[in-house]
């Protein structure tokens, strides 16, 4: 009985909030209608986007309330309202989320009043269930009805507030547009860096090399000793050029990744990191099918960056690397038991990591409380 009372009480609170919100929306819809009218008169065009934002906020708090009751989050999909007034107006009207919210609001105006049904159940329930659970020792039957009512309210709200497939699609397109822009920018920066490295480094060395060989040829007859020195010099230049070229290649695509695949390359990284590193691999080993090259490269750079950071900043002699093939792609986790407190803004490392991962539509989660441990988790979606 006590439990039934408690639950019925919670359900009533939920229904009271719903009713209050429904009542609120009655007022609100009036405001909305006025805004629409004024907007037609072009006097208060700026009000429309603001109104839509307000509706979003109300729908958002409703989502929170329903989630608190059901325990299941309701997804949200809105297009950001930004830009010039004209654009804001366009987005406010065309965003499928606006329609979803308005539909919910209108419906909620009606079903929000379920409280009206719940309230009379209280006196009846207290008497009937009091007798049933007291002298009769039976289960209460009336008070749970109130809980059912709250469930019903929550189910309708969930159904109405869930974004339409169209809205989700719109949100996805928005997200992809942004990550693609980021990927193109990163790609361009990368190309410029490679171009600069080759141009200023390797190419310049080859020019000076050719010059030295030319001089050596001229000196060959008169001054063999000078020619020798020039050739010696030329050879050194060649070696420098080769070293630089190797570094450039390594930065584009680590050769060991081609040779050994992700697991092998990460084990090699671990061995040369200067830390004691355990590497755990699930479904990505040598004889497993290989992930797409771009995903392998991103995962490799994530581990390299994370291990470098761990060696430099964590103060811990140990780190754990976990690579796994998951249904949605590849998951990478690097953990150290160091001092934590890694800052996103501190260096370019984590920023670069985020950009690289975002370009592949992946996510980076860094948890690094002061005192450790630091855990970097990366998900790279892909199919293969």
């Amino acid at each position, binding site marked *: 009985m006590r439990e039934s009372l408690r639950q019925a009480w919670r359900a009533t609170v939920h229904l009271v909030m719903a009713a209050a919100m429904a009542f609120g929306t009655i007022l609100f819809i009036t405001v909305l209608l006025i805004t629409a009218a004024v907007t037609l008169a072009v006097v208060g065009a700026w009000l429309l986007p603001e109104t839509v934002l307000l509706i979003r906020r109300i729908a958002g708090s409703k989502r929170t309330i329903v989630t608190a009751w059901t325990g299941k989050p309701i997804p949200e999909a809105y297009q950001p309202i930004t830009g010039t007034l004209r654009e804001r107006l366009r987005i406010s009207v065309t965003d499928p989320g606006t329609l979803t919210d308005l539909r919910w609001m209108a419906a909620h105006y009606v079903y929000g009043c379920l409280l009206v049904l719940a309230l009379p159940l209280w006196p009846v329930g207290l008497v009937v269930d009091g007798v049933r659970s007291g002298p009769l020792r039976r289960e209460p039957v009336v008070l749970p009805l109130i809980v059912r009512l709250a469930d019903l309210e929550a189910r309708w709200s969930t159904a109405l507030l869930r974004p339409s497939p169209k809205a989700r699609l719109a949100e996805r397109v928005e997200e992809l547009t942004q990550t693609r822009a980021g990927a193109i920018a990163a790609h361009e920066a990368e190309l410029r860096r490679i171009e600069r490295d080759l141009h200023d480094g390797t190419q310049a060395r080859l020019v000076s090399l050719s010059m030295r060989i030319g001089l050596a040829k001229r000196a060959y007859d008169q001054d063999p000793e000078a020619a020798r020195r020039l050739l010696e010099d030329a050879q050194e230049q*060649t070696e420098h050029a*080769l*070293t630089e070229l190797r570094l450039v290649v390594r930065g584009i695509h680590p050769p060991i990744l*081609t040779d050994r695949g992700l697991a092998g390359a990460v084990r090699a990284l671990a061995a*040369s990191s200067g830390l004691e590193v355990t590497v755990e691999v699930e479904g990505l080993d040598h004889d497993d099918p290989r992930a797409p090259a771009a995903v392998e490269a991103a995962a490799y750079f994530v581990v390299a960056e994370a291990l470098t950071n761990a*060696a430099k900043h964590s103060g811990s002699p140990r780190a754990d690397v976990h690579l796994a093939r998951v249904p949605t792609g590849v998951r990478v986790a690097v953990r150290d038991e160091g001092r934590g407190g890694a800052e996103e803004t501190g260096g370019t490392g984590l920023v670069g990591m985020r950009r690289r991962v975002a370009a592949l539509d992946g996510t980076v989660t860094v948890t690094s409380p002061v005192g450790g441990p630091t855990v970097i988790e990366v998900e790279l979606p892909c199919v293969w």
Partner: protein
Amino acid sequence: MRVVIAEDNALLREGLVLLLTSSGHEVTAVVGSGPEILPALLAHRPDVAVLDVRMPPGFRDEGLRAALEARKEIPGLPVLVLSQYVEESYAAELLVGGASGVGYLLKDRVGRVDEFLDALDRVASGGTALDPEVVTELLTRRRESPLAALTPRELEVLKLMAEGHDNTTIARTLVVTERAVSKHIGNVFLKLGLPPSDSGHRRVLAVLAYLNNA
């Protein structure tokens, strides 16, 4: 010496053949792909094999695998592995069965003809030739270690030992007497807590094992 070469790049292949024949060696076979390596080595039983790591058909680490395979089939077969880039873990794999008759060098080193031929001789006669870059990688990745206690000169001696050079070469490279080299080596072993070893490949192994586990 009778040499078998495995290299898929025509330019480098011709260069190697030219270099070896002009310095008095006999190239008994030249192969251009991974699967051909082992049969060629079994058929010719060369004094030393010069293998490229990345070969057709997969362009991954066919040469290295063939080298390991060949040393299983023909124990002690001297192999000199050449690569466009050096990878510490590859060196470790080559050294698993012992450092005797093993070489692992960057392709760049071929340009230093005398040093390259010297390394080839060393490998063929059961010694070791490790690329300086591998050794540097091994040395620099240690954060806190007894290596810090070594003097710069002792560190140089340690590097040259790890690359597989004998006392004579070390002395010549550093322009000091062999007696001085012996003294430095003694100090290095003492500071690192290693048992004194002879000048052969066992010494290389001891030093490398130390660097790997420090």
